[in-house]
């Protein structure tokens, strides 16, 4: 796939061969002059539609900055961010559900903001709640749910946002996930990783998943991208196939190299 589609308009319909996300030598610097901090430097990254990509890196590698750039919450200092999907939607480490709304109304919120009718958004919310195995829990409020259930409601909401942004409802969206399972206990995390893979396969969304857990990255992703720290640049890229143990050893070794280079 060598053709790069020249397009900056986010809502444009893209052909099947187009990239879901194309970062072209993207850099981000905070502040100016003496106090300037470069968070990202010349990142080149392409994500295909429906791909599951994990961004891996130690602290300070600009993972979250990168997601913010993709989400349009922040602008790149240099380079270009080109999106081939509907507006990407975000999932954070915390569920960030609105505590005064029921689970269903939380899922409905992005649809409501997009101007959908009551009936339509209710149906869609029920559908998405069923997808994350929360049938019949729609009337509960966040405080009545467990941590894992809340994070699944957040996933359903992110899916609602990802598929509602444009008028073309069939355009698969993109999920940006910023260590979404980091705050959960090990058992719940394990189950939710499996659930995320199932939902990803069922919906065909593109997923950009940030983590600092090598094992999590290898389990989930089709492709793992390792970022260095301060400033963040791409230092390695692996396709996940067979031989996961070897891959784990290799990536961990490379990650350690990146970290030790900061010891001086």
């Amino acid at each position, binding site marked *: 796939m060598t053709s790069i589609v020249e397009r900056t308009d986010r809502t444009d319909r893209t052909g099947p061969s187009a990239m879901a996300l194309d970062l072209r030598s993207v850099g981000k610097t905070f502040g100016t002059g003496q106090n300037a901090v470069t968070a990202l430097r010349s990142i080149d990254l392409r994500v295909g539609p429906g791909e599951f990509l994990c961004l891996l890196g130690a602290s300070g590698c600009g993972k979250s900055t990168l997601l913010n750039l993709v*989400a349009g*919450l922040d602008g790149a200092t240099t380079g270009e961010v080109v999106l081939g999907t509907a*507006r990407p*939607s*975000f999932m*954070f480490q*915390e569920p*960030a559900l*609105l*505590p*005064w709304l029921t689970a269903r109304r939380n899922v409905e*919120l*992005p649809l*409501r*903001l*997009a101007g959908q009718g009551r009936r339509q958004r209710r149906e869609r919310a029920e559908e998405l709640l069923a997808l994350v*195995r929360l049938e019949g829990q729609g009337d509960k*409020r*966040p*405080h*009545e*749910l*467990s*941590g*894992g*259930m809340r994070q699944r409601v957040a996933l359903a*909401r992110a899916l609602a*946002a990802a598929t509602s*942004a444009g008028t073309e409802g069939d355009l698969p969206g993109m999920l940006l996930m910023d260590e979404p399972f980091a705050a959960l206990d090990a*058992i*719940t995390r394990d*189950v939710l990783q*499996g*659930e995320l893979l*199932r939902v990803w*396969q069922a919906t065909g969304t593109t997923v950009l998943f940030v983590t600092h857990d090598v094992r999590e990255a290898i389990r989930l992703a089709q492709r793992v991208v390792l970022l260095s720290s301060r400033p963040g640049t791409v230092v390695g890229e692996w396709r996940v196939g067979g031989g996961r143990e070897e891959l784990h050893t290799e990536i961990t070794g490379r990650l350690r190299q990146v970290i030790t280079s900061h010891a001086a």
Partner: protein
Amino acid sequence: MPPEPTPLRPTGEAHRPGATAVLEDAAAAVAGLDALDTPTTTTHPWWRRALSTALPPFVALLVFMLVWQLVWASAITEEFKIPAPASVWHEFAGTVEDGRVWSILWTSVSRAFLGFGVALLIATPLGLLVAKVPVVRAAIGPLLSGLQSLPSVAWVPAAVLWFGLTDATIYFVVLAGSIPSIANGLVAGIDQIPPILPRMGQVLGARGITSARHILLPAALPGYLAGCKQGWAFSWRSLMAAEIIAAGPLLGIGLGAYLKEGSDFNNMPAVIAAILLILVVGIGIELLVFRPIERRVLRARGLALST
């Protein structure tokens, strides 16, 4: 054995042998985790809740009346300083009989409600401005919280000089007392919103007014309600101060004026009856209006106490 009908399966992954078993397994694991992790709540029967909330204050009131009766019966002080509970009751019953109590209550309560309503209309946009516009906050934020500690009685002499002995004086004092509380409550409520919520709203596509309507205002509601509650207490207090100090033919008889009248005629039972009425109205509004609203709002957010 009849051949089993082939189940219809969606195309893709599920066609692999054993895939459905894995899926069912995952579903069971999720369901099990949910069942284990869901927070449990214990509920007591309504009569126990009613008993545990109503009985203690009732007993306390009974003890208080008993002590009062004993102090009066022991005749430590003169009758005109501490009257018998019964004579206070007779005074109160007298005003009920000639219907005076209703006009007195109506005068004060209607003033308090009108004043509080106007204060809400002024304080809400003011609070929003102070909370969201940094320049405005820097300019009048400290003044607004400072005004909260200024007793509104201090406004009465100035108001009398400005507006004379008219309703305008009363309303001015009520507004001066309650606006800072309500505005400060809203500011505190907005300041306490977890930053992740507006960020989430932005990601979901809420901007400006939509963000305020769907995220900011509902998120700030608990703090705003607390401010309103305090604002009500302040406006009721200020009203009484104004009614006691500023008395005149144009003003009509409210609770404060009734109290002042009792004091002027050395009628201690009337004074005590007035004080108790002021107390009862203040507590009554809080219990009947603010408590249910607050409880509903907090319970929806999982913040209410278990009682």
